């Protein structure tokens, strides 16, 4: 059978498949959805209560204007592209904020306003994967939910984190999803604006510094989410308010063995000559580095090696 015959046969067989029309049901459902939305907008109020409600509404609007209440949730995604969605209680997107240029590329010409949150998550994560921001080597995604109602934002966090994980597993990628939720903080908002990152990343770094006070905020701000996730894992830090689902990828980093070979070659020390050797993952100048200390019979050595490029950042030998 030739290709053309196969195609014709397939076409013919498929065109014979029909489903019963559900047009009437569809139109009824559409009408129902419209009614529901209208009802949500203007609930019928008895005339005698209308004036009181009007006064109350004016007061609330005034309070809203002066207090900037958090009546919507913010869901942000940070890989390196940093995108924030403002959503309403119906989980529909009201606004999209790009925190950096990579985010603009990811969003391309997508208009996500008024879409359902799950549709927007699908589009954003799919695009991050398509543009190579999420890969086997960089598989960590930070999901952050901000809102005033603790229970609601926890449920939202869990749903979005699960969606992200599922979407990426659909691309055969095992992701590590770091998720957290928190209340609005003016200080964190200001830091996010200053450094051009999401409030979620600011919060994650702040929590990390709380546990490891040796780090400065500016030391960690340029690290990717995968770097931060690796650091958390390496230092065995457990957070009460952060959930990490899945293991972060280490394939983009040098292994302990590669680091050892590199520093020993540089110092011209053989394995047999080693008296002691230890290395530790650390941060220097916004880079993940291995801090390596070793000794042979003649000297003690200290090296710092970039964990990704393998470049020797600094070394010191004491005879």
């Amino acid at each position, binding site marked *: *059978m*030739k*290709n053309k015959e*196969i*195609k014709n*046969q*397939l*076409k013919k*067989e*498929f*065109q*014979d*498949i*029909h*489903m*019963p*029309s*559900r*047009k009437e*049901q*569809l*139109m009824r*459902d*559409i009408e129902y*959805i*419209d009614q529901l939305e209208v009802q949500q907008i203007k609930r019928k109020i008895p005339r005698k209560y209308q004036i009181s409600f009007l006064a109350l509404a004016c007061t609330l609007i005034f309070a809203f204007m002066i207090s900037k209440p958090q009546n919507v949730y913010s869901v942000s995604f940070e890989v390196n592209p940093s995108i924030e969605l403002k959503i309403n209680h119906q989980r529909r997107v009201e606004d999209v904020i790009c925190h950096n240029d990579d985010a603009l590329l990811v969003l391309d*010409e997508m*208009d996500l306003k*008024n*879409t*359902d949150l*799950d*549709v927007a998550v*699908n589009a954003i994560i*799919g695009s991050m994967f*398509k543009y190579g921001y999420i890969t086997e080597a960089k598989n960590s995604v930070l999901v952050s939910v901000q809102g005033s109602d603790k229970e609601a934002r926890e449920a939202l966090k869990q749903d979005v984190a*699960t*969606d992200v994980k*599922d*979407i990426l597993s*659909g691309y055969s990628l095992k992701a590590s999803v770091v998720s957290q939720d928190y209340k609005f903080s003016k200080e964190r908002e200001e830091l996010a604006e200053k450094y051009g990152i999401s409030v979620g990343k600011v919060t994650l770094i702040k929590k990390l510094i709380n546990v490891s006070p040796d780090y400065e905020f500016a030391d960690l701000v340029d690290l990717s989410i995968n770097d931060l996730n690796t650091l958390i894992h390496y230092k065995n830090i457990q957070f009460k308010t952060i959930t990490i689902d899945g293991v972060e990828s280490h394939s983009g980093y040098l292994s302990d063995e590669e680091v050892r070979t590199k520093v020993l070659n540089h110092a011209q020390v053989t394995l047999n000559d080693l008296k002691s050797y230890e290395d530790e993952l650390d941060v220097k100048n916004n880079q993940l580095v291995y801090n390596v200390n070793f000794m042979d019979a003649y000297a003690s050595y200290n090296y710092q090696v970039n964990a990704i490029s393998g470049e020797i950042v600094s070394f010191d030998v004491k005879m």
Partner: protein
Amino acid sequence: MLEKKLENLVVELKENQDVLAQIYDCMYDEVYRYIYSIVHNKEYAQDLTHDTFIQVYRNVHLYKPKGNAKAWIITISRNVTYMSLRKLSREQVVDYEIDGVDEGMNGIHDKMMIKRMMKILCQDESEIIILHVVEGLKFKEIAQIMDLKLSTVLNKYHRSLKKLRKSLEE
């Protein structure tokens, strides 16, 4: 001709919800066939077809008229389907069972080629074949819908036809 008509209807839907009925008439069988090829269950495919048109209605304000209304609707149906499949697997709710290859085709004709296709091609491959051969979409549109590179779509398409040809020769 149909593409042009569909495009106009989708644009009109932004202002007039009654047009949805006409869009449904134009596309429901095509959407159903495509979804069926993914889920292999008549009832489930019918429900998802219904959901697809609800989403078409709810998201029509996002449609940018570029002459590809059909591809846009198929993209929605694909998203609706995979989202539902993910949800089902996450909740481990088995509301729908997968039909045997023979079921779901009963009462029509002998769907020899479809059965063969479902048996020997993987999901991506049969989707590409259906979208191109049956729905008449361009490879470029298919690449966009499935989020694959054009070269991957072309490779998979030719490989699938070869597989089908070979299985017929055996």
